[in-house]
């Protein structure tokens, strides 16, 4: 098992790793002790950063949404992603679930017009061969659908005793508060105590002025909940990984 092999790495690999924001806190201790890493760190921070995809890397690309569902079996995720890569498409967002024995996959794919058209044809053939229902829709963002700049994305996490109507109650108060559900992910979790809860995470586009009313409305429901800006929630993911590493080390 390879937990750490940084001494085997090339200088380029090591430089990239040292500058990785996720690992920098840990490396900072190590840099005091290791001359080779310290020299690489100095060199990497003194010179311009190596070329990496920037914010506009996919600026000229079009996008498409792909949804696939069929009887689950190993290897489907790979065959689909491989097909898209061959067509020159990049997967911007991927969501895959096993639902009731079915393989379900939801993708947002980026590519130039030619790549997306090639992907559409290839994916249709793949679906027929694998007996997977697959649809691919080119994105048609119009002026009236342009994102509103006054909205901010908030993440609502909630847990409720499993009962009919939890999602309805939560999404209803979001609509009443003027919010728009951008993402929802929830499932029934079976607790060790034997009871079941429905745990859900919802990303809501909302004007900051409407946050207070939404929080009050959610609090009035019979659910345990927490709301925070999405950027705060996502930065804590990297924090959780760092904590996990520390736990492993100790």
């Amino acid at each position, binding site marked *: 098992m390879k937990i750490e092999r940084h001494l085997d790495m090339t200088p380029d690999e090591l430089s*990239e*790793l040292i500058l*990785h924001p996720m690992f920098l806190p840990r490396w900072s201790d190590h840099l005091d002790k290791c001359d080779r890493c310290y020299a690489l760190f100095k060199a990497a921070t003194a010179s311009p950063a190596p070329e990496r995809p*920037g914010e506009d890397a996919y600026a000229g690309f079009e996008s498409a949404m792909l949804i696939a*569902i069929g009887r689950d079996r190993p290897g489907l995720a790979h065959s689909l992603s491989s097909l898209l890569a061959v067509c020159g498409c990049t997967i911007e*967002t991927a969501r895959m679930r096993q639902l*009731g024995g079915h393989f379900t996959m939801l993708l947002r794919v980026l590519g130039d017009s030619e790549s997306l058209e090639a992907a559409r044809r290839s994916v249709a053939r793949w679906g027929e061969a694998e007996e997977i229902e697959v649809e691919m829709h080119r994105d048609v963002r119009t002026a009236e659908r342009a994102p509103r700049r006054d909205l901010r994305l908030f993440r609502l996490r909630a847990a409720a005793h499993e009962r009919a109507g939890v999602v309805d109650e939560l999404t209803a108060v979001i609509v009443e508060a003027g919010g728009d559900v951008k993402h929802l992910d929830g499932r029934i979790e079976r607790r060790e105590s034997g009871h079941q809860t429905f745990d859900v995470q919802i990303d809501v586009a909302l004007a900051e002025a409407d946050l207070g009313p939404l929080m009050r409305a959610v609090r009035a429901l019979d659910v345990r909940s927490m709301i925070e800006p999405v950027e705060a929630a996502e930065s804590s993911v990297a924090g959780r990984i760092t904590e996990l590493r520390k736990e492993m080390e100790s």
Partner: protein
Amino acid sequence: MSARTAAVVVAVGSDRPGLANSVAHRVKEADCTFEDARMETLGSYFAMMMRISGAPSNVERLRKRLPGWGREHGLDVSTFDDLREPGPRPGESRFSLRVDAIERTGIVDRLTRALSDCDVNVARLDAKIIHSAFSGELRFILEALVEVQESRLSEVWDALDETELDYVLIPVTDVRAGGAPAFAVRGA
């Protein structure tokens, strides 16, 4: 306890505010519950994949009504029979896999090939390209739940190492109670 049955529902259409609530309301009206649900706005589209359950007659009624209701609201709705939840196969354990890498084309392909070559089943996968808050560069973040044959664990670690992606692979439950912790980290 009365018998319950389940079904899988997929809905796709042009996004607009309130769609998620409309679907959730139809499910509640039918006296069914969500077992597992994912709704997503991707570009200008809204997509929803869910497993719902309830009394057989309620589930059947919902399955009959949803496609017609969807057409009226610009949603393409399909329903599917619930098949057996596969769960881990004999000798398999569930692991949480997290990857954080600099974005480049083909990462999902490389990663899923490594897993597929070791007969690893991907039960759940969420991945997204994000802009790094500090450098502005594009990063690829992935979290997955995978089912790994315990006898092939070291092979899986080697395959993941070969992808040259930074990853954390940890058991969802202890596969070796009392033994050495089974985890692997690359890039630490």
